[in-house]
């Protein structure tokens, strides 16, 4: 089985994994980074969202060969202590119900706000539409993204 050199949350990491393994399962099962969640495995729900060189990507649908030489950030590495403005906004708004999809929501929102720090309501809806929340906490997710944008100014 091949060995890969990865940059995960700012650290150089070596991992042995099959080349067709989705990055999601390598993070979860090999690197013990279980904050990134499995939801559908076909890039439809967004639970597994991570940042690859700052871009929000679905880790269930990219393989190891696609991440070599790139920098991966997971929810565990978004901030040292949960102090990222998006995480702070999530706490202030008390977004989660079951909480399972929220890591993916936060990763999508944080990458989006880096690119669009001053979003309209419609921009937020479009950006967050790829992430499913089965508890349907959509009103609060929207509110938290708006609040995070204010915090990031």
């Amino acid at each position, binding site marked *: *089985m091949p060995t890969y050199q990865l940059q995960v949350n700012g650290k150089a990491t070596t991992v042995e994994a*099959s080349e*067709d*393994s*989705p990055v999601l*399962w*390598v993070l*979860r*099962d*090999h690197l*013990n*980074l*279980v*904050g*990134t*969640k*499995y*939801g*559908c*495995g*076909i890039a*439809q*729900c967004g*639970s597994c969202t991570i940042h690859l060189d700052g871009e929000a990507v679905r880790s269930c649908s990219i393989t190891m060969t696609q991440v070599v030489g790139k920098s991966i950030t*997971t*929810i*565990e590495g*978004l901030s040292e*202590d*949960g102090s990222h403005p998006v*995480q702070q906004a*999530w*706490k202030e708004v*008390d977004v*989660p*119900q*079951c*909480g*399972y*999809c*929220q*890591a993916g929501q936060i990763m999508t929102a944080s990458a989006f706000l880096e690119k669009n720090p001053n979003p309209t309501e419609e921009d*937020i*809806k*479009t950006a*967050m*539409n*790829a*992430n*499913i*929340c*089965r*508890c*349907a*906490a*959509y*009103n*609060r*997710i*929207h509110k938290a993204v708006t609040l995070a944008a204010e915090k990031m100014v």
Partner: protein
Amino acid sequence: MSTRTSIPFSRRAFLKSSSLASGGLLIGFNLFTACKPKAVESPMDLSSLDYQDFNAFIKIAKNGAVTIFSPNPEIGQGVKTSMPMIIAEELDVAWDMVHVEQGILDTQNYTRQVAGGSQSIRFGWDALRTTGATAKQMLINAAAARWGVEASECTVSEGVITNAKGDTLGYGDLVEEAAKLETPEEVTLKEPKDYKIIGTGKVNVDIDEIVTGKPLFGLDYKTEGMVYASVMRPPAFGQKLESFDATEAKAMPNVVDVIQVGDKIAVLAKDTWSAMKAKKALKAEWKADTKLESSEDHDRILKGLLNGNKFETLRADGNVQKAFAEADNVLERTYESPFLPHNCMEPMNFFAHVTDEKIHLVGPIQTPEGTAGRIAEMLERDANDVHLEMTRQGGGFGRRLYGDFAIEAAEISNKARLPVKVVFSREDDMADGIYRPAIKYRIKASVKDGQITGYHLKEAAINSNMYGLIPNFFPAGAIENYQVDVAKYDSNITTGAWRAPYTNFLAYAEQSFFDELFEMMEVDKIQMRLDLLEKVKGTTDERIQYSPERMQEVIKTAVEKSGWGKQADGVYQGFVAYYCHNSHVAEVADVQIEGGMPVVKKVTCVVDCGIVVNTLGALNQAEGGVIDGIGHAMYGQFGFDSGMPTATNYDKYRLIRMQEAPKVTAHFIQNEYSPTGLGEPTLPPAGGAVANAFKAATGKRIYKQPFMENPEFWRLSDQPILG
């Protein structure tokens, strides 16, 4: 139903205090034997779950730190926050002194499974308050004894006891003495006006862990030597395993073993991906054991049942046939719904490690005690061998009431003699479900001299019918001639409870029907509802649980809050009012036409669930329930073709997303009634509010869920139907 009612249970049976080995006071209590109400509105018989001794605890350490072990499974409904809030209120400690932990306290003295069941707050209200108040009284008694004063002269605020002279002692100073005292026979509970924690907004106790991605959920659990199991189950309902060849799968990297358990084949591997991949390499032959059923069959059969005469009558008042025969006008409509999968965001999974010494189980489960018992029985083991730990749960919606996934994990671990985590893929989760059954309702009502004289509801459902008190919900008691008849067809497709069982579809059917009936009668839709409820006031019929007064209040409040009848041009409204899970709800949906399509822009939701424990959590439940209800009414399309599900992932099965989610404004009626359900009641009426608003906007009615699958409705515009 008032909060001040005396508490009808034996205190000795449910409370016990003792010293902790490490120092401190421990109070154990049994939530369920203490407070099980007479009428249980639940598809599960809670008494059969065999809760043993204590299932919840308060621990007060010598330094005054309070740990509350939250007794119930947390599935996103917020009880891990709200139940400890109730204890902390009566214990009289500051919320920031409280640490909340899920699950069991695994000491030598107390090893008990935590219990689960629906309607946590309603069941727990008296017991949680009494437990907090008892602990407080014991600490006061200990302080009074030390000071040599009467307990009655001591006062408490935020964990500090003060006597008449002004001396103070903290709870932590008193735990050793308090633990030696008798549990008091009577305690005084606070008046709602004195609440400091109940009725405020407290953030989810797991919030820091959730936003930083800490391991919390069943899928996150790991232990040394654990293998992952991906299980191949019969692809169609009605099939059994004939034979299989695992040669190729076994030769794949990281695969540990392939074993058969019953009609299933489990691939065990060192990581999830290897297990999932090797499962695809299995070659299995299946044979039909019973009929392979299709949704077309079900449609035909259920319609046949509605047209037939083989019903069980659940309630019959007066004579509906006579009312219909004598009517000026009769309206009859049929409403249809599909099966629905639960689609918890965290797919089903469970850890099991069966050894000669014990059975260790870890994972997300709504019925831990019952499931542990079933596993002990299946493996012919002593119930005391089972040790079950609950994790936070990535959604429940009823699916995790059924312990099939945990039983499967135990079966596999027992055979493999390895620590095993069974992981369902999304496809497994949707294809091996325990679904909301497909149901059809036919409702017929008669009108004579401007009055509704008869109402006849018929239900035809797969596998099981409406239960408990549902036949006594509105309009029972409001219409003289009233009848509810049910019939079912036994299918080999597994079905069960889905968030707000039965009412999740019945509310839409009934509320849509009333909207149409009121239009036929040319009456004011609000006044007619109020008039019907007026007739129920003072009823002596004990089966009627809804309150006409409380229902009228939510209706009037919804009229006011939504601007009913005063909406702007181009805004079309739909009104509903519904009682279920002991709460009263009214909702108004605002629809506008955009690009030729009716679009739900806003929903006003008014809830009377008695005292609101956690205002932040309550709003979240209400908003989520409304959007979830709309999402499934609009898009949830699921059925079977020769026993196989028609969708197994989100490319073919549509869940509501942010762009379709309306703005929900929720309002709670302020009163001092004991709290009732909130995880479910806002969901059932939402579909009806939308359907009625669609009618107002387009002139057309929808009789079938999901709404998107009604081409004749959407054909009103030139725009293509959204897919």
